[in-house]
């Protein structure tokens, strides 16, 4: 009873192969700007690499993992075949075609604008078309998730939607609304300029639209990891989910609060009013609530596992935990990185503190810890969990999996902690080289070499991941049926509002309008805000 096997497998494979390529680029970037290498003679090559690394890691990898995991959840949790299989394949091929188009344009040097687009810089229209295809492919997934949930509801009136599917559809709706910002930016502002229809672009407005997408997209990346926290971790380590309702509350809070906060990326932008910057900063603080709820719930669920295994006393349950279980290891690593990265995030979101770290390596360190660390390590676990279902393989060598997780964890800390340090010292990000011979920079040189070493560990870990997945041996025995976590209170009543999305989606849209409508209208009406475009690689 898992018909979407090939579909899910295709998503994961394309995601991880692109991931492997992009991580090699990341390590190359780290190497050429470290004192271990001479300065890159053509900085354009560096920015080309940054663009490719960012585009794959921010759009292609998480979108494909969320889509693939979403299709798997639909069949495994609703226990019925996926509706719209052909459409799903169509969406997949759109994402693949878009990725190929964007990659070819970047490779040709026609799109070194970084994945955040940065108007008034303009890439070739083919790059934006590639990104649009990826997004349109993912919109098909959003529609299919909604349709499948609706069909299941019709057949199961009054039954609570399984938590995994609830989180999955919350992620889909979040993405649908989130992607509207960048879609408007690309279709209305960037593409006309890139096609040569206009010579100027309202760069401030474009940045406001991108901020609409830029922060909430992080929570779209995060959803699969959170679904794994709630619905895979407790089961995999032999515990119970402490509270099903808490999971639902966390998911709907993400839906409401992750959207209208993106202007905290524009603290240094003069065209946005200080009042709106404060409102967005305050609401950014709100979005830490679902994360804190999740950490509490998952730690409580893990404690249940510890006590079921005979742990006693205030801390005795920690010792009793199954520390040799890869999932136990992964969730621990993930929380450590989430804690460090989250603490750094509080500094980024504070209007004044942000000034000290804005556009420094601190920011790079922050999002690598949170996304590439805490979230991506859970993507690995999702793949390891699903693989026996997808390929019929025997369970993996636990030893190899643990080595892979350790390498990722240690590598990510070694990569990103030095970035935090030098960020505080003011090292700017997005630089192709630094002059370490200068007495002012010389003391920081070693940190860049250390980060390069951390990056190398990550490359080894990524290669190991692909090796483990690719060499999975088919087993003669059928895999055990897939299950999700059992709640500690299985008979608990699910409030009707936590079983549907109407209220939360309405709140999400209303709050976005309150927080974004005025800045958008105001900047759009400023004639002076249009600036000449700068096409990249046009001469």
């Amino acid at each position, binding site marked *: 009873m898992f018909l979407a096997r090939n579909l899910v497998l295709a998503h994961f494979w394309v995601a991880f192969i692109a991931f492997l390529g992009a991580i090699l680029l990341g390590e190359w970037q780290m190497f050429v700007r470290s004192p271990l290498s*001479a*300065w890159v*003679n*053509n*900085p*354009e090559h560096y920015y080309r690499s940054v663009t490719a690394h960012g585009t794959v890691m921010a759009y292609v990898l998480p979108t494909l993992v969320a889509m693939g995991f979403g299709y798997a959840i639909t069949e495994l949790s609703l226990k019925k075949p996926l509706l719209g299989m052909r459409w799903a394949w169509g969406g997949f091929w759109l994402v693949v075609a878009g990725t190929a188009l964007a990659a070819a344009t970047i490779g040709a040097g026609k799109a070194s604008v970084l994945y955040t687009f940065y108007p008034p810089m303009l890439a070739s229209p083919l790059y934006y078309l590639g990104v649009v295809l990826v997004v349109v492919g993912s919109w098909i997934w959003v529609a299919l998730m909604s349709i499948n949930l609706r069909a299941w*509801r019709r057949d199961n*009136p*009054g039954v609570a939607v399984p938590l995994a599917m609830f989180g999955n559809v919350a992620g889909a709706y979040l993405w649908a609304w989130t992607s509207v910002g960048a879609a408007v930016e690309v279709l209305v502002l960037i593409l006309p300029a890139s096609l040569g229809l206009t*010579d100027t672009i309202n760069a401030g407005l474009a940045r406001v639209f991108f901020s609409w997408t830029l922060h909430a997209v992080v929570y779209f990346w995060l959803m699969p990891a959170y679904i794994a926290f709630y619905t895979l971790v407790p089961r995999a380590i032999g515990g119970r989910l402490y509270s099903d309702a808490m999971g639902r509350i966390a998911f709907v809070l993400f839906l*409401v609060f992750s959207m209208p906060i993106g202007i905290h990326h524009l603290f240094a932008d003069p*065209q*946005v*009013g*200080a*009042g*709106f*910057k*404060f*409102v967005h900063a*305050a*609401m950014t603080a*709100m979005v830490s609530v679902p994360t804190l709820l999740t950490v509490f719930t998952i730690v409580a669920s893990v404690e249940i596992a510890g006590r079921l295994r005979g742990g006693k006393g205030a801390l005795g349950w920690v010792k009793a935990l199954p520390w040799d279980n890869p999932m136990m290891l992964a969730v621990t690593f993930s929380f450590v990185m989430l804690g460090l990265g989250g603490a750094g995030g509080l500094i980024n979101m504070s209007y004044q503190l942000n000034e000290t770290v804005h556009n420094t390596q601190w920011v790079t360190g922050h999002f690598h810890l949170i996304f590439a660390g805490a979230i991506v390590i859970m993507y690995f676990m999702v793949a390891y969990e699903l693989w026996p279902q997808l390929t019929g393989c025997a369970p993996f060598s636990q030893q190899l999996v643990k080595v892979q997780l350790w390498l990722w964890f240690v590598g990510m800390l070694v990569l990103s902690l030095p970035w935090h340090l030098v960020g505080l010292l003011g090292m700017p990000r997005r*630089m192709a*080289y*630094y*002059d370490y011979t*200068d007495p*002012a*920079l010389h003391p920081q040189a070693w940190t860049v070499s250390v980060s390069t070493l951390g990056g190398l560990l990550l490359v080894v870990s990524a290669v190991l991941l692909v090796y483990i997945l690719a060499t999975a041996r088919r087993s003669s025995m059928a895999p055990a049926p897939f299950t999700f976590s059992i709640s500690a209170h299985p008979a608990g009543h699910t*409030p*009707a*509002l*936590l*079983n*549907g999305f*109407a*209220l939360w989606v309405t*709140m999400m849209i209303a*709050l976005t309008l*309150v927080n974004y409508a*005025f*800045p958008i209208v*105001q*900047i759009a009406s400023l004639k002076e805000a249009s600036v*000449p*475009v*700068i096409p*990249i*690689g*046009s*001469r």
Partner: protein
Amino acid sequence: MSEPGAYAWANPWFRWSVVWLVVLTALCVLVGFVWLPSVHGDFTAQGLWASICRAAGVPAKWSATGAAKSGSTSTNVVLERVMARPGAQDSIGRGATLALNCTMCHGAQGMSRSDAPNLAGQYPEVVIKQLHDYKTGKRESAIMVALAANLSDAEIRDLAAYYAYLPKARTAPTTYDEALPALVRVGDPLRNIAPCIACHGGVDQKLGAPWLEGMPKEYLVGQLTAFQTGTRRNDSEAQMRNMVRAMTPKEIDEVAAFYAGKAPATQAR
């Protein structure tokens, strides 16, 4: 979802969710638009409504005096992408006729045999900008100011179209390795000197930045020195003056020799 009354005010889940969100939003707005600005002299000088407008990003007045910024401007030309488009055939033809006036110094085909700059293949917006700057006195040259004085806007466009149409001189290599001067390839970040190839072609070619390859070395050294001493100041936002200010005479000589392409490779290092 189908539970009756889930979306009714009587349902406490619904009621409290809506009330909390509204209260939270109102609080944030009050703090951000009223309370925080109230402790800032800049915001409160003109009353409550003005401070709210300012916090929203639309101050009633942008500056206290309201007077436009005055002072000397380096150039009156606003570079627009439309200037960079190739000219029509008839424009090129008219430009070729007008260019007969220029051949004495700039060469019959735009390749100078004296130390005047080559114009063959020069980007049209560059020629347009410089001629306008001569015309308005923003760039000085006893000969060029007199010649540009009588040119109309259309004639300037025609000249630019003609010179852009001629083939460029190429001397620099198309790949950039350690054999080239460091300032050309990578600049000097800690002296705020950007690499030449970031604007003048190589990595990128920015609007208004001239094609330099094959230019007479004397001309390049002269212009860089003029930028450095401030006798030439028609670069908007002091782009070139800021680049050259920190350069030594030896470095000026090196980059000029590289672009002139006449010096042997060992000297260009």
